[in-house]
């Protein structure tokens, strides 16, 4: 395989029953970037996908958003959050599975804070482009998804690794 072969499946989850969390642990540091593809439906009510790394529940997350709901465009920022966001206007509902593409660049370096990009699409609600920051220099070794409701059965989440060489 030529250098740059990419999109290695690291781990995948298909929920067989409703679950409050989806978690990837023991993430190898051998890739350059990682990409999370989430196709989610909610159980119990609408929800956002909350994202935490390495068990960090502190106020070490922040984000800037560009979002729309079919009539209004909004951009705003939030500081000192307890988690990053996969979606806002493109929130997860109980009707149809949405699409969230979340990219974690240079996730295993131990020098810089970690920026990650979320692109969420839910045709019935809206869509987002979100820039998140986790203020930690630790390598990302685990990713936990949670929310204010539970992820419905059938929700899929796959983590891919991308190499530049």
């Amino acid at each position, binding site marked *: 395989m030529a250098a740059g072969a990419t999109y290695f*499946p690291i781990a*995948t989850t298909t929920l067989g029953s409703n679950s409050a969390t989806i978690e990837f642990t023991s993430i190898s540091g051998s890739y350059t970037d990682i990409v999370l593809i989430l*196709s989610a439906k909610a159980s119990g009510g609408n929800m956002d996908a909350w994202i935490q790394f390495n068990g960090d529940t502190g106020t070490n997350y922040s984000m800037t958003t560009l979002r729309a709901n*079919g009539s209004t465009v909004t951009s705003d920022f939030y500081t000192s959050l307890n988690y990053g966001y996969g979606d806002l206007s493109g929130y997860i509902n109980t009707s149809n599975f949405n699409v969230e593409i979340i990219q974690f660049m240079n996730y295993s370096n131990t020098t810089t804070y970690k920026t990650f990009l979320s692109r969420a*699409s839910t045709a019935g609600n809206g*869509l987002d482009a979100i820039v998140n920051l986790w203020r930690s220099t630790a390598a990302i070794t685990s990713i936990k998804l949670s929310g204010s409701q539970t992820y419905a059965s059938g929700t899929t989440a796959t983590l*891919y690794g991308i190499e530049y060489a």
Partner: protein
Amino acid sequence: MPNTYQVISSVTVGSGGAANIEFTSIPQTYTDLVLKISGRFTVDSASAFLRYNGTTTNGSSRWIEGSGSSASSSTDGSNQYGPVHGIVNSTKTASTFGNAEIYIPNYTSSNNKSSSSDGVTENNGTSTTMALGANLWSNTAAITSIQIVPAAGGNFVQYSTAVLYGIKNS
């Protein structure tokens, strides 16, 4: 480790243009599909429709669009299954093409099919288009074909390209 981002098929429009670009007999062996388009139309419209399995019903979408001077958000219930914005239209600088990417997860599932679309054009001038879209095809059939159709009629011009990739989660 496998490389799971694989080319399923690609199309390059020949001389004379094409009224649509179509992928048929899509293998059902992947988890997700990614469609990448580099295109230009012969008409004054930057939007295309995606049609799955030859149908023109049960589509809806919302999107955000920036023109270089303002941003807006709209919905569409044209039943053509979701516009993809960002294909360069005929009024723009010659030889410029727009780029669009559509991500379709779980395309073989028995659920309604959601997708995410991003499209951009640049014109070295005014009135460009960049758009992010959320699309839904309310149909539980597995996707076996995808047709990309200029939303306002006309053709794709020569050298427009579309590539369909398959992604496996294992």
